[in-house]
């Protein structure tokens, strides 16, 4: 394998299990996705798609199994859950931003937290046609979804975890975020969880299709 100085993000998870009380939600899920690829996760409601993504993001600790995500050379150590949390880009229906603040103020806050240039927020808001000075509480659900994308991409993550990322978006909105996803896939990877009926873009390189049973 040719030596390369560019980091090769790879996500590999094996036999991930998670229970809530007596309910076994994830019963040994495995998958692998590398830079430039998309891992599709589908399944009916309650099959554990969101739970899997939360585990991958480091928001939930699995009861069993292994999550191996590395951004450096293949033989470097995988990132810990704490490191993963700060690195990933995460879009999910239950992620919200501060309602009393405007979209611009929200992104400014998170840019400060992440130590990225504060202008990036304005650029993303413009790209997604979001009004920067309206309080988030006053945004429509479609706009909130676009704002979630802006938040997720703010720090140029290598790994995107997308849980129902196209919900509430109109045609134009969905087109823009698909564009953003493609740009991301130039050197990043993505895990996308959806109910079955969403069309993958032609340009996506689907690494695997993990189907979770209900």
């Amino acid at each position, binding site marked *: 394998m040719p030596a390369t100085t560019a980091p090769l993000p790879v996500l590999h998870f094996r036999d991930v299990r998670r229970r809530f009380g007596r309910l076994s939600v994830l019963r040994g899920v495995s998958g692998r996705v590398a830079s430039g690829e998309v891992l599709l996760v589908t399944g009916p409601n309650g099959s554990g798609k969101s739970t899997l993504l939360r585990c991958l993001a480091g928001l939930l600790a699995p009861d069993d199994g292994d999550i191996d995500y590395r951004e450096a050379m293949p033989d470097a150590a995988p990132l810990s859950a704490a490191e993963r949390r700060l690195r990933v880009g995460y879009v999910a229906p239950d992620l919200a931003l501060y309602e009393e603040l405007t979209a611009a103020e929200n992104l400014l*806050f998170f840019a400060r937290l992440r130590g990225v240039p504060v202008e990036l927020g304005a650029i993303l808001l413009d790209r997604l046609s979001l009004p920067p000075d309206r309080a988030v509480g006053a945004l429509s659900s479609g706009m909130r979804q676009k704002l979630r994308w802006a938040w997720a991409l703010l720090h140029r993550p290598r790994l995107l975890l997308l849980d129902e990322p196209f919900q509430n978006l109109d045609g134009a909105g969905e087109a823009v975020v698909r564009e953003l996803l493609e740009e991301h896939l130039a050197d990043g990877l993505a895990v996308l969880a959806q109910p079955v009926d969403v069309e993958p873009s032609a340009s996506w390189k689907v690494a695997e299709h993990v189907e979770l049973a209900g």
Partner: protein
Amino acid sequence: MSSWLAEASAIFAKDWRAEARNLYALNTLGLFAVTTLVLVSVGLGPMGVTAAGAQVLPFLLWIVLLFATSAGLPRAFVQEEETHTATALRLAARPSAVFWGKLAFSLSLTWALEALVAPLFLAMVQLSVKSPGLFVVGLVAGGFGLAAASTVIAAIIAQTRAGSTLFAVLSFPILIPLLLLVVELTRNAVDGATADVVLRQLLLYDGSVAVAGAMLFPAIWNP
């Protein structure tokens, strides 16, 4: 990557910016405190208390502060969890920054509350303080202990289903030593006595809770 201090300051600033939009926490704290103060004053009657009965007054002051902070401080974490903004914070900020940023916010609220309540209290119960310097030191140090313990416990209960009722149950045992120490200190301030030993123990409590809280916070905040 930004520094820990920059992250904590950003969180502190964000909390105040959000607070400035609706003044919810300040209103809750203030209203609760003033209502309790009025209750105390009415209960004591127009003549106030006798010299002997004045022993109980420092205790009443701190009960008012304890009740008000129990009502208003847990919101720092409970609201983040209820509105689901906690997820974004978990994914963007280091746990230590969240802890110190939130502690700074709770602390500023507590000291602001004390600045309102203490003079009102002294006036309403007609209490004169012989060592005002020590009195203020007690407010500052006691307020720190209240804010620090409240921050840790708020972070715990925010992740349960029970919320604010549980806050009182959990914080009471933890705050008893603080209450006893700071009431004794305040009493000494009123009487004009020295209180080196008590002050030292109070500061030790503050330090211990802050350090223990900082060490436990990653386990509380993250899975």
